[in-house]
């Protein structure tokens, strides 16, 4: 275990060094995460004459700034990395190392968080300045935010890992991820708050994993749940994490059996 922790710490250091090496490109890429701001502009205009489904202009501002913050802090891109490595055959070199490739990919994604923080910090400042009144007043919600953000990141990462692993059998699975992303953008509350959907969709979103990738941490920041509800949702989120973890392991094992290691 100590060996694994030492290795993971080195992965994080190397990942951070890579993120810093790409600093300009990285920051530009971060700024491309601007969909919540576009949606905020649209919904703020719609709410000018009065609240929409309970959201005032300030309510929308709080929601979308929080959504932007969650997206910035839970970003993952492993599916594209896996697809590229499988197609170019460089995955072979990773597989020759006595450490599971998922560990290094996860560290690469996590180690970008300090760089992400550079963009996220001003968002926090604006959120506190513009919509402080809309934020949760109960410290318990903020306490749960840490595991909720970690859970959201894990879900996003593991879904990508599962879909990327399908590339071991089909050479590329990025189109499958695009399809997932379509559902996710809608049902996670990234584009539109789940409260604005018809009741049937709202209820469905409580049992699907998408909500736990974004909407749930946002709702915690906005104090939408009682302590009991927030805890049971956290349990549901981490149950999904456990399921996805098991699925990743199974898909990976199966994929390796069929891996053709094309190229070179």
């Amino acid at each position: 275990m100590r060996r694994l922790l030492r290795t993971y710490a080195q992965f994080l250091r190397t990942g951070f060094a890579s993120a810093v090496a790409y600093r300009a490109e990285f920051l530009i890429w971060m700024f491309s995460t601007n969909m919540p701001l576009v949606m905020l502009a649209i919904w703020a205009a719609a709410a000018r004459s009065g609240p929409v489904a309970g959201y005032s202009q300030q309510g929308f501002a709080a929601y979308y700034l929080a959504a932007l913050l969650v997206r910035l802090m839970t970003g993952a891109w492993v599916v594209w990395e896996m697809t590229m490595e499988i197609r170019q055959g460089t995955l072979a070199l990773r597989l020759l190392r006595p450490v599971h490739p998922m560990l290094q990919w996860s560290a690469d994604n996590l180690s970008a968080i300090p760089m992400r923080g550079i963009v996220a910090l001003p968002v926090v400042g604006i959120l506190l300045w513009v919509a402080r009144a809309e934020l949760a007043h109960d410290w318990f919600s903020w306490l749960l935010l840490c595991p909720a953000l970690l859970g959201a990141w894990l879900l996003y990462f593991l879904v990508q890992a599962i879909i990327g692993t399908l590339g071991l059998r089909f050479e590329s699975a990025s189109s499958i991820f695009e399809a997932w992303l379509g559902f996710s953008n809608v049902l996670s509350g990234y584009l539109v708050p789940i409260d604005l959907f018809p009741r049937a969709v709202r209820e469905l979103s409580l049992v699907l994993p998408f909500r736990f990738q974004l909407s749930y941490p946002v709702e915690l920041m906005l104090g939408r749940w009682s302590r009991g509800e927030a805890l049971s949702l956290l349990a549901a989120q981490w149950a999904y994490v456990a399921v996805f973890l098991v699925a990743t392991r199974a898909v990976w094992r199966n994929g390796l059996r069929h891996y053709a290691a094309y190229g070179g």
Partner: protein
Amino acid sequence: MIEADRLRKWYRVHRRPPGLRAAIHSLFRRTYEDVKAVDDISFSIAAGERVGFLGPNGAGKTTTLKVLSGLLHPTEGRVSVAGFTPHQRERGFLQQITLVMGQKQQLLWDLPPSETFLLNRAIYDIPRKQYDATLAELTELLDLGPLLGKPTRQLSLGERMKCELAVALLHRPRVLFLDEPTIGLDVSMQATVRGFVRAYNERFGASVLLTSHYMEDVAALCPRVMVIDKGRMIYDGGLSELVRRVRPDKRVRLRLSRQVERRDLEQLGTVIEHLDAEATVQVSQEALQAAVARALSSLPLTDLTVEDPPLEEVMRDLFAQGRAA
């Protein structure tokens, strides 16, 4: 150290003719066929042995290396490397092997090679003392000193390959799979890499299985060669024995003080090359002694050497014989 027993690796490949019609047809119905990349080969390599693995493109060399290094599951047969079954990919196995592919790199592109060394130190859990000693040794053998701090993307191909070799050997593997390690390198860098592989093999007693299209690599490094064609082993034995068997003729290379008539050379054997002050004649083993004596007595020689035919020609003949059979 390395054992393969009746190893087979078949791929299922989708085939379709060119053109739009075939592309649309393949959307609904696909034709697959099995390609026998490796077809029933057996061999054994001892600890410390250096073996050349030769064959034309698509013969199955790289597939075999990938099975031996645990990247691919064999379709049939049994494989054992350092006492492990490679495709089970146990930590103990991965700690003992390395695969260097001349066309792939594990160095981190935007960071200096020293960062990849640190990464591999953590991955292979190399104790600090051993890491420092190995790195110092590799740095000296490969003259890496000035390269360690430069971003990998700014290194030349030869400099990158030297660092690739160093990073691949940092954990002191006992089995080296080298797939075209000198591809694209200039002659002096090829010689450096060859010298380094030999030095590592002698220093650590590691087994080496090398594929290369540069026959100089094989001639300089491998007393034994295995030749594979269309997935099947067509030769396994000594390199000199292979040359004797496939091309028993010798090459007599002559340096002359003045130009001579072609017919004077034809009296020695088959003329391969005839320039102003240089000529090469092919002579059978039996006629060699007489041909050399005749050349010494009748030609204005400044130098005479007797050589085996180039390995490239030996291989070409071997594959041609195999296909004709």
